[in-house]
């Protein structure tokens, strides 16, 4: 996958470079030299272009329409410090625009754009044996609160089944009175939604009083183990959470039967 990056400030570019290291792509930087950019695009036909908007020599939006003329399928991401949105773009440019990457860059958004350009869905890896953690593009997912993390762990344990509010409350807040626990449940749900929408990784269907996990694009060691895709169970499952004990005994039984 080939991409080009046009930005007049080298400092902004350096950070960009750090993020691109280790990814399977070929990239080329340009300062605001329009003829060089066009020459490269016509010769090499890159998949996407990351364009700054305010540059001394050229305007990124004008450059975008020229790039689109040269290669109609090119995808554009604008990297800008300005407050712009799709509606500020001419329609022919908006059609090819994936979005805006505001400075300073948000790594998650950058990785999201790259996955969009490659047309390859991002994968989340979930680790349940031992303590619970999730990773997207090898980066740990920072949950907004410990309870929202626990709620997500419960969703993983439910393995695609519908998790109702009452189920969640009885397992995560067993000792709290109902009114208060509903408030805490809503708080956890809101934080969960916020976390995944910021990561641009939509994997939960938020319904009224229940949650459903969409399992595509999620790789989970627990799921792999029970469907016999892997054998790496180590005798520990979501060890921070009290409600995991029945799951643990189930896994132990499974483990014992497989050994026999």
């Amino acid at each position: 996958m080939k991409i080009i990056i046009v930005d007049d400030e080298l400092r902004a570019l350096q950070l960009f470079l750090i993020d691109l290291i280790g990814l399977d792509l070929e990239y080329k930087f340009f300062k605001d030299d329009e003829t060089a950019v066009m020459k490269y695009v016509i010769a090499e036909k890159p998949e996407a272009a990351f364009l700054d908007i305010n540059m001394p020599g050229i305007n990124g939006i004008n450059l975008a329409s020229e790039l689109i003329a040269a290669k109609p399928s090119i995808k554009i991401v604008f990297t800008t410090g300005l407050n712009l949105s799709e509606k500020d773009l001419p329609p022919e440019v908006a059609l090819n625009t994936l979005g805006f990457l505001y400075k300073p860059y948000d790594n998650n958004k950058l990785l999201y754009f790259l996955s969009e350009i490659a047309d390859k869905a991002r994968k989340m890896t979930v680790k349940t044996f031992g303590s619970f953690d999730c990773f997207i593009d090898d980066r740990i997912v920072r949950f907004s609160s410990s309870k929202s993390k626990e709620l997500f762990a419960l969703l993983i344990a439910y393995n695609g089944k519908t998790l109702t509010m009452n189920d969640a409350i009885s397992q995560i807040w067993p000792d709290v009175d109902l009114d208060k626990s509903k408030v805490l449940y809503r708080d956890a749900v809101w934080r969960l939604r916020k976390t995944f929408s910021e990561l641009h990784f939509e994997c939960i269907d938020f319904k009224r009083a229940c949650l459903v996990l969409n399992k595509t694009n999620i790789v989970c060691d627990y799921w792999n183990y029970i469907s016999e895709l892997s054998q790496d169970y180590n005798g520990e499952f979501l060890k921070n959470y009290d409600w995991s004990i029945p799951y643990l005994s189930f896994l132990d039984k499974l483990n014992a039967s497989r050994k026999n």
Partner: protein
Amino acid sequence: MKISKQKTKLIAIFIADLIALSAGAISTIVVSATNAYSSIYFSGFLIYFSIIALFLFTVIVFVDCYAMFAIKTSTYHSFLLALCIETCCLLSPDYLSLFNLPSAYGLATNIIQYGIFMVFVSVIIIFFNFSYTLGMSKKRKLFYFFVCLVSLLLFVALYTVKWHFVSFVLILSLLVEVLRYTSRNPNIKCFNSFSFRPAQFLIFTLSGLILVNILYSSGTIDNYPFGITSFYLFTMTLTYCFIYFSFVRRTQERDFDNLKYRTQYERLKSSSLQAQIKPHFVFNVLSSIKNLYHTDPESGDYAISLFSKHLRASVEATSSDIIPFEKELNNIHIYIDLENIRRDNELNVIFNIEYSDFQIPALSLQPFIENAIKYSKIDKNEDGYLKISSLYNNGDVLLEIFDNGVGFNPDSIPQSSYGIRNSVERFRLLTGVTPEIISSVGNGTLIRIKFNKASLEKENENNNS
């Protein structure tokens, strides 16, 4: 300074009233004593003058009639007043004889006099029932009405013995009493009404004319000073013109006030930038970030990205007014995260969000959160928390921001209450919805905002266009 100016103005008006009241009577007595009047009357000048004065006042009546339909705000009494004045004047011996109706005049003087006085009393009653008396007690109004009625009955009863001026004196004392009462009670609408004083002058002018009539019909003077009605009519025409003039001026002032309010509103909206990007907050955050980079560079990166999102949201708030509620919540969350970076004890904030499918003006809620964090001292208490709730019921959205902190007495004005009031005022200006403050010392503070989803969206649209 201002009060003494007001007082001088009142005294000046009162003197003008007195002159209008007595001028007719004095000139009548003087003319009657020198016996020089009747010969002047039929000179051409007075006839033309009378006709012109009557014509001008008729124009006023029509203008008022038109205004009553064109401008809907309570101009109907002004029209009634003009109509009654016109009737009084037409019934005066002056105009009756001008239009050559001496026979009718001669036959039923008493009936005509009753009519004039009745119309006069109606004028007084209309005057009392103007919107001017808004704020006056019903009992007092009833009393005035009663006095009017008594004086009318007295007039008829005493007419035969020529003592009917007593009822005129009664009406006059009633008028003076009303003026005394209204100029001392700022709660009554007329106290600040632009047209009340001119209308009062009109009433006194008309009283002056009635006085002349009574002097004549009671036999105090022998010769009716023909032409006096036209002078009075002319004066009243001028007074009406003055009322129109001040009405136009007041409308312009109101336009100006509206403009002033509008610019103030715009300024308030744009000042949300300054309000949000508070310099001390910016520098505090920057120094915390600097510290973070020395201990934990990754958290430093995280803090920088939070901080830039916060700044972006603040800048965006000045350009795009209406944002999804979810976005406002995200901005609030970012703000709280930034607060947490520089705190030893993290703030415990609960997002009790059941419903978020609506839009609100950008940064309209955040000031409440800032206030709560600043003054509630929830971070000093281990169980302290801040709860943001959004509930939906049958078209109504209920937003609540509750902290279980120190609270305050809403009746006093401590610093915290002042901050909340500012936020309330800002929210009211942005949305037209007034948040409710429920707080008491020791029991935390609850800000409750209840609005109809559809009507808020309409308001948002109006503000945008």
